Structure formats: structure tokens, C-alpha cells
């Protein structure tokens, strides 16, 4: 399973998107099994961001799973830390720890608690969970790379609802001011937060304009289009930090979960798990 990354690297541009799409479906199956153990998790956000995470971990990020703290690795921070099942799944499938360990998700004393723990899980750069923390830390990572004269990059995945936390904009302002082209923020724009639609709670639009006004190069993109994601995330920017507003569907991949607010942290029944697995296998 760990050579999937090599296959993506070897693929030509025409095939790469389809290959990443197949891996993303395996990631979703992995997430489903992971959540099915403790009957806890955040499947809606896990599924909306699965394609972005797959593209990063199997296509873009410069990493060495056998040396998780390699100094020159690219940094990845999942600011929406509640989607830990998705992060754990890609980390395990990418070889950072055994896939079998996913069975301990949220079990008593497990390293795999409901939110990522840097101290216990190789590949996790920062403990996240309280929202609005990831971008400031990512900003620090990007400044550190500059100071060190390194060309390593930093990627931060943010939830869209999370952008209601003001600390994100403190970091956005500073990153724009500093012209940190080695920093990329990806907003998982699924338009749903825990309790309602983002636009009914605290309107975010015009979201791309907000980032632009803070000095970022912004791309609005289909967050489930692997070829496009790969092209944008692989390319290096000019003189600005870069933001991808990734239009996604919460619960993407399973028809009865997609775009429904109640699936923020609802867990599928045994019957629903079978239905979901069938849909994911058929795709």
C-alpha cells in the first residue's frame, strides 16, 4: 500500500488524476472502517476533505515516513483537527504507522484520540482541535523555512466554518504582509458547519475576495478534482502566500451523507456502513 505514492509520482498527467481518485476512494473506505470501530468521528468533514488530503499525501508533499521528523520535510497541518480519521487514514496508508492501528481509533489510552496528537503520532506536526490554531502555526513554519534558507513548503487545511475564528485573519494578515509564497492554505469549502450552513450562521462570502484583500493569491477550485488540485498544489507561487478555496461537498462519496448538516458527527449504522461501502466500491 505504501507504494501508491510512487505510482502517482510515476504517472503521466493524463493518468494521475484517475489514480488519485481511486486512492481517495480507498481513503474513504479506510475512514469508514476507522469511525465504525468506536462509533464516533466526523464523517462529513472527513469525506469532504479526503480528496485534498489524498492529493497532498500521495502526490504533493515531500515526506519520508521512515523519518517523520526529517528537517527538510514539507509541513502539513490539519487545522480542522476534528477530521482526524481522515488524517490518520492517509498517514497510515502512506506508511507513517500500521493501518491496523486505525482499529484503536478513540479507544481507551490509544494514541489515536479524536484529535491529532503530535506527541504520539508520527506525521502530525501540531496538535489541533480547537479551531483557528493551524494557520498561525503554519505561518510560523513558513517563517522558519525562510530563516533556515530552506525551500520546504507548508500546507494548512482549514475548515470553512473555522474561518469564523479571528485568529485565522491575524495569521492571514501577517502572511500576506510577509509575502510568504512558501505557505499554502486550503479551505475545505463545504458550506456546512456543525449546526447549520455557514452562510446562515456567519456569512463568509465573498470568501475568495477576503483572502485576496489580505494579500494572498487565490484559486477557487473543485475540491474533488484531483488533477486540478495536484496541478495547483504542486506549482510554486510567486511572491504571495497562496489560498485554494476548495469547493467541496460535505460527506462527498456517499449519497445519503452528502450535504446534510446532521452528518457532521453522526455515525452510520451497520446497515448504512454496508450501503456506503457499496457506493464507494462501485464508483
Amino acid at each position, binding site marked *: 500500500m505504501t507504494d501508491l505514492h510512487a505510482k502517482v509520482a510515476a504517472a503521466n498527467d493524463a493518468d494521475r488524476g484517475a489514480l488519485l481518485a481511486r486512492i481517495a476512494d480507498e481513503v474513504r473506505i479506510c475512514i469508514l472502517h476507522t469511525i465504525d470501530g468506536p462509533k464516533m468521528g466526523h464523517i462529513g468533514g472527513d469525506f469532504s476533505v479526503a480528496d485534498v488530503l489524498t492529493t497532498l499525501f500521495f502526490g504533493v508533499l515531500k515526506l519520508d515516513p521512515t523519518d517523520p521528523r526529517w528537517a527538510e520535510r514539507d509541513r502539513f497541518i490539519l487545522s480542522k483537527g476534528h477530521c482526524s480519521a481522515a488524517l490518520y487514514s492517509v498517514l497510515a496508508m502512506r506508511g507513517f504507522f500500521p493501518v491496523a492501528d486505525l482499529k484503536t481509533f478513540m479507544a481507551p489510552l490509544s494514541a489515536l484520540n479524536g484529535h491529532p496528537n503530535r506527541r504520539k503520532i508520527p506525521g502530525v506536526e501540531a496538535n489541533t482541535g480547537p479551531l483557528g*490554531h493551524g494557520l*498561525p*502555526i503554519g505561518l*510560523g*513554519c513558513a517563517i522558519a523555512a525562510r530563516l533556515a534558507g530552506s525551500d520546504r513548503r507548508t500546507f494548512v487545511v482549514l475548515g470553512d466554518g473555522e474561518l469564523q475564528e479571528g485568529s485565522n485573519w491575524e495569521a492571514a494578515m*501577517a502572511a500576506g504582509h510577509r509575502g510568504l509564497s512558501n505557505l499554502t492554505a486550503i479551505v475545505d469549502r463545504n458550506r456546512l458547519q456543525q449546526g447549520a450552513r455557514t452562510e446562515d450562521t456567519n456569512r463568509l462570502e465573498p470568501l475568495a475576495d477576503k483572502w485576496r484583500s489580505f494579500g494572498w493569491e487565490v484559486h477557487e477550485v473543485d475540491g474533488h478534482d484531483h488533477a486540478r488540485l495536484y496541478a495547483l498544489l504542486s506549482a510554486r507561487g510567486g511572491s504571495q502566500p497562496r489560498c485554494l478555496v476548495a469547493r467541496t461537498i460535505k460527506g462527498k462519496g456517499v449519497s445519503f451523507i452528502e450535504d446534510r448538516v446532521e452528518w457532521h458527527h453522526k455515525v452510520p449504522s451497520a446497515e448504512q456502513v454496508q450501503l456506503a461501502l457499496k457506493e464507494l466500491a462501485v464508483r
Partner: protein
Amino acid sequence: MNEMSPTPNTTTFDCRVAFAETMIEMARVDPRIVAVCNDSVGSSNLNAFQKEFPDRLINVGIAEQNMVGVAAGLANGGFVPFVSCASPFLTGRALEQIKADVAYNNYHIVLCGQSPGMSYGELGPTHHSIEDFAWMRALTDLTILVPADPQQTRDALRWSATANRPIFMRIGRFKVPAVTPESEAFTVGRASVLREGTDVTLIACGTMVSRALQAADQLAAKGVSARVLNMTTIQPLDEAAVIAAATETGRIVTVEEAIIHGGLGSAVAECVVQNAPVPMRILGVPHLAPTGSNAFLLDHFGLNAEGIANAALALVA
């Protein structure tokens, strides 16, 4: 009075100058050291640091949550950030970042709370940093240091640069007398016995240490022998020194420029009550402080030699 006593004379020294000089000295030899601040280059005494190391002074602007998060990212990249900011806003405004990004991540970050306690007395309770001990003590992975004079400030900074762990330290705003014997080695987690005594122990930190020594002089004049401990490390607490004080002197007075809920006195009391229960008095700030100069407020709350001596006398009587 014991002529050998280290009772301070009237000469005072500036911990902020010690901070500024030591930061530069350390940065010259350790390229990992960076300073992170919030529009506080001047008030943090980092102007000279910025001049010599312009790239290594990261001013994030008026954004304390971002400031602490940035420090976490810098630590992730192998740098040792010294975050410098007025203590009330560092500890209060960025409390969750200190918990999640610094302590829980176990990053080597040194949080330097400038102008702590009631340094900004006239500016009112929003600018008083009297809750910082309680907030930081709740984060058990943080080492909490309270240097009492410039020598300890320098020593605490130098230790922090190599400690490889999260640290919070108070940097005092006002000049203080030297209380530390020059020959004394700085040992984290170890209280300094500044004076031996048998009737009562005065345990103080930071700005209160010289006042505790003055109180001990007053007590000596009345025939009361007071031990004086400088508890530079509030966390982890020197429990052995506290238990020895309880068992050997039978009474303890703590004194701190902080709210009495959850600070030095609470830490000492937790140790005493579980190991060697003895009568105690906890001196500090009992509630939100009114407005007034720092000197006025310390007197107002009895945080002076007379107040400390009277608390000790009440226990001894």
C-alpha cells in the same frame, strides 16, 4: 541582626536591561534563538536585538493568538522562540494557544511575560497581570520561573535557551535590589535559602523577595527568627524545601504579586496540607485591584515589609 545577612541595600537594578542584554548575548552564539513579539519591540526592550538580528525579530503586530501560534511553527522548524509580550495579554489572550500549541505540543518555547503583576498599576485591572500564575500553573507541562533580580533573570534566560521544554517566565518592570548571592548557581526547581531561621518561613518570589528579607529584619528586631526562601521556580515546586520549612519552622507565610487564588501560595499550601500541615498565611492580591501606582497598590494590599512581618507575627503569637 545578622551582619552576614544578604539583606539588600538601596541600590536597585533593572531586570529588563538584563533581559535585553542576555537575549543578544544568547543570539550571538545560538542561531536557533529568535524573538517573537506583538508590536512590543520597544516595551519588550528588543530594539537592540532587532538592530543586530533584524530577521530574527518577528513582530506579528497586535495579534497575541497568532504570536503564540507562530512561535509554535518556529519551534517546529528547530528554532527556539522567546515570545515577549505584556504578561496579561500573553497569558490571558493567548491562553488556549499556550495550552494547545505550546504545552500540549511540548515545544521548546520560552514565554516571557513582561511587566507582570501590577506593574501597570494606573492602567487598571485589564492591564494587571495577577492571574498569570494561576493560568500557567494549570498547564502542568509548563515550567514557571520568576526571577527576583537581574542575576536570576540572566540565569533563567540562559537555562531556558537549552531546556528543550515549554517555559513561562516573568520579566519584572521595576528596578529591584540584588538578592541573589553572586556565587549561587541557578538551579531550576530549587528554592534559594536566602536566610536561615527557626520560627517561621517566608516564601516569596519575584518582586516580593527583597521585601521578605526586609520583613525578616523587622522580625529579627522583635526576636523572631524567620527563614527566607526565594521560590524562583513556581512549577515544578521545590517540595522538599517547603516540607523542610513546615517541619523545621512550623509556620509559613507566602508572598507574591499575584492573585492569591492558584498562585505561589496555593502551590505551597497544596504541598503543605498533604505533607506537613502547619499554619499558613497567603499574602498577595485578594481580588481585582483598584487603580494606583505599583508602589501604592503593593502598600494597599500589605505587600511590604510591615505587612509581611505582621502576618508572620500573627502566626507566631
